[in-house]
């Protein structure tokens, strides 16, 4: 019984049923294909899966019957139709074409989690490389694996949301604003992507701690208790590292916030996004939480530029700013739709507003993902953080100040402390943009 050449290359069609030997030590090139069901040479074979998107597109074993006039370029007909199963159970040892089976390593039982971490990181790096070169939509969230939370620094903006922003800008003759905002967002995406590609030790540490913390239902569920802290950990990259960040946004800072923000800015607000108003960009979403940090600038928490905040739409004061803020706490701004007068009121407001809006069914609190968590409880969890929201200028070192002043952060030099109040309006592009739009 010889060694199976296909397995060594990563695409054996027969998997466990193969008559040739599949040596385990062969670097696990990739889950071999499951036994093929396609008997006749019918189109659309199973190209064996390659869950790591490696550059090899497995040629299909069966030639397709090319349809009359349609012809993809070259072998694209099948190359692009590779099927891989994304089994829920990433840990199963059988060679189902589990997209994530890179992480299910039957032989790594001994290595345990360490190996899985390595693979996760490799996966992240690979995905970043592909993302960079593929021309796909860049304003998208990302996660290397099903159960893992979204990696911070990437948040969803759909093409429709962006297009609507453009149309609105055009109507107000402010296309320049739109263009700038988009460029800024793109630059931030690029920064984050490069950072993840390079994966220096601090990024690695932050990522791994974030991954470890995923418990159960990640995605929508974000926002509560334990999960919350973990997701916050996510946000910072080198910046605020862990819990501090988001949680600090939410409640701790509240008092200072209120005092300083009488003009209507909401520093942290920038962060989580945006409140109800519109699609907003990046900053919005974030059940993955600390998106703000996501933007490469710890400053993100920074407030919106004061001038624009006041122009905030719906409900003015409360909306983007505060609700965003509060939502950081709740992580999930379900309540953001309601304009919130002042932070102090937020707690109460959300608590109450939450219920009516959801109306019957779902019992807000009961809702599994709990993002509705009444802000009160969220507050409690958040107060664990001890960091302030802003660092007074006196506490910043010269280099940190320089970083904050600079147009962009230099990777590796991103300050760990939150930005000083004085510089806040420089950074909140999103709120800036958003407030212009709505």
């Amino acid at each position, binding site marked *: 019984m010889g060694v199976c050449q296909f397995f060594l290359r990563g695409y054996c069609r027969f998997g466990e049923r193969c008559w040739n030997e599949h040596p385990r030590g062969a670097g696990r090139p990739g889950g071999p294909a499951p036994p093929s069901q396609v008997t006749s040479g019918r189109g659309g074979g199973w190209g064996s899966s390659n869950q790591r998107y490696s550059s090899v597109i497995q040629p299909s074993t069966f030639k397709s019957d090319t349809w009359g006039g349609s012809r993809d370029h070259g072998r694209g007909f*099948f190359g*692009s139709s590779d099927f891989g199963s994304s*089994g829920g159970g990433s840990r199963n040892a059988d060679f189902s074409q589990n997209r994530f089976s890179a992480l299910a390593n039957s032989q790594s039982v001994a290595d345990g989690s360490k190996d899985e971490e390595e693979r996760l990181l490799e996966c992240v790096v690979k995905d970043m490389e592909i993302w960079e070169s*593929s021309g796909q939509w860049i304003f998208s969230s990302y996660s290397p694996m099903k159960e893992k939370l979204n990696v911070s620094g990437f948040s969803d903006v759909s093409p429709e949301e962006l297009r609507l922003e453009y149309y609105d800008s055009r109507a107000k003759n402010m296309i320049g604003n739109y263009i700038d905002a988009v460029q800024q967002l793109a630059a931030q995406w690029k920064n984050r992507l490069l950072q993840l590609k390079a994966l220096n030790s601090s990024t690695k540490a932050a990522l791994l701690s974030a991954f470890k913390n995923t418990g159960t239902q990640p995605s929508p569920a974000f926002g509560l208790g334990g999960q919350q802290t973990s997701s916050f950990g996510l946000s910072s990259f080198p910046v605020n590292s862990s819990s501090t960040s988001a949680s600090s946004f939410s409640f701790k800072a509240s008092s200072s916030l209120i005092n300083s923000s009488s003009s209507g800015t909401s520093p942290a607000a920038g962060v989580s996004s945006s409140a109800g108003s519109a699609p907003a960009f990046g900053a*919005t979403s974030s059940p993955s939480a600390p998106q703000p940090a996501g933007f490469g600038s710890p400053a993100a928490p920074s407030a919106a530029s004061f001038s624009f905040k006041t122009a905030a739409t719906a409900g003015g004061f409360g909306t983007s700013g505060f609700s965003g803020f509060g939502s950081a706490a709740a992580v999930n701004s379900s309540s953001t739709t309601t304009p919130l007068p002042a932070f102090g009121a937020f707690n109460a407001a959300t608590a109450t507003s939450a219920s009516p809006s959801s109306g019957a*069914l779902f019992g807000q609190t009961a809702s599994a993902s709990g993002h509705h968590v009444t802000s009160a409880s969220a507050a409690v969890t958040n107060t664990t953080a001890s960091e302030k929201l802003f660092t007074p200028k006196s506490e910043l070192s010269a280099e940190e100040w320089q970083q904050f002043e600079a147009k962009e952060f230099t990777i590796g030099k991103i300050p760990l402390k939150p930005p000083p109040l004085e510089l806040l309006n420089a950074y909140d592009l999103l709120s800036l943009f958003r407030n212009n739009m709505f």
Partner: protein
Amino acid sequence: MSLFGSTSGFGTGGTSMFGSTTADNHNPMKDIEVTSPPDDSISCLAFSPHTLPGNFLIAGSWANDVRCWEVQDNGQTIPKAQQMHTGPVLDACWSDDGSKVFTASCDKTAKMWDLNSNQAIQIAQHDAPVKTIHWIKAPNYSCVMTGSWDKTLKFWDTRSPTPMMTLQLPERCYCADVVHPMAAVATAERGLIVYQLENQPSEFRRIDSPLKHQHRCVAIFKDKVNKPTGFALGSIEGRVAIHYINPPNPAKDNFTFKCHRSNGTNTSAPQDIYAVNGIAFHPVHGTLATVGSDGRFSFWDKDARTKLKTSEQLDQPISACCFNHNGNIFAYASSYDWSKGHEFYNPQKKNYIFLRNAAEELKPRNKK
């Protein structure tokens, strides 16, 4: 050439490949063009249900309008009526009896358009653009479900200005599909929730997204006894996940496949990856169609896990698609979907809606 019930279509299309090369590639598949298409990108397409004799197509567009055409058996399309919103229309659907059309718009409202009287009234209000709208017909109730970027899912009795029910979503609603008694909603930040609609809508399960990137479109499929059993989810990253709600063996039954990518002949060169803009299941065969930003559409058989066909590349992305009630017609819209940002937006470029005979090409592969 008859559009329905005959297998014309393709054969005639094929020959032209070798002969003339039309410089203009707006209709490489030689499909039927719908007359008077909208002036801006088409965001959604929907065919009338079987309760209405004949075929009527509605399309919502970024020009703030919803248009309705009658599609005749010989392929001729006759513009019938049009309604306006004050913002771009993002989604549209028919009521089960075919008398009303519901439209959702960026102006944060949804309207009900009575086709007989050609009147439209507002039936829903959100705090942010309404992205999805579906008609729910349950044995004991009927309502309109709207999903919005304000992170709520609301259910409306069209006679009342306040919603019958509001459900919170974890994030902005990006796409949804309803096949009674199941509804699937995909949100921003890779959120995915399934609802059950019997008695009254309630959340059934939150699902870990099988995809790594932003969700873009979702479509529910049914099993052999016509019960909804799972859904197909498309992302911006040229990938579709087939997910069963209660499969016997999740690891084996659920899977993802890549699509709408530039070919990989040269394995060392990076692929171009395009977003999947729409997924539609053939009502009879159960096979599915996907349309992408690359300007192609593909037909797939998810049970045999094979690709049935991929089209030629159009010169614009394909932004929406749908099948008519009996699966004879496949409609797809060729218009810019903003996948490359504002620089590639040309307001002068014409938008098209094409109709294709889908009776033959979507027959499933026989598994041996």
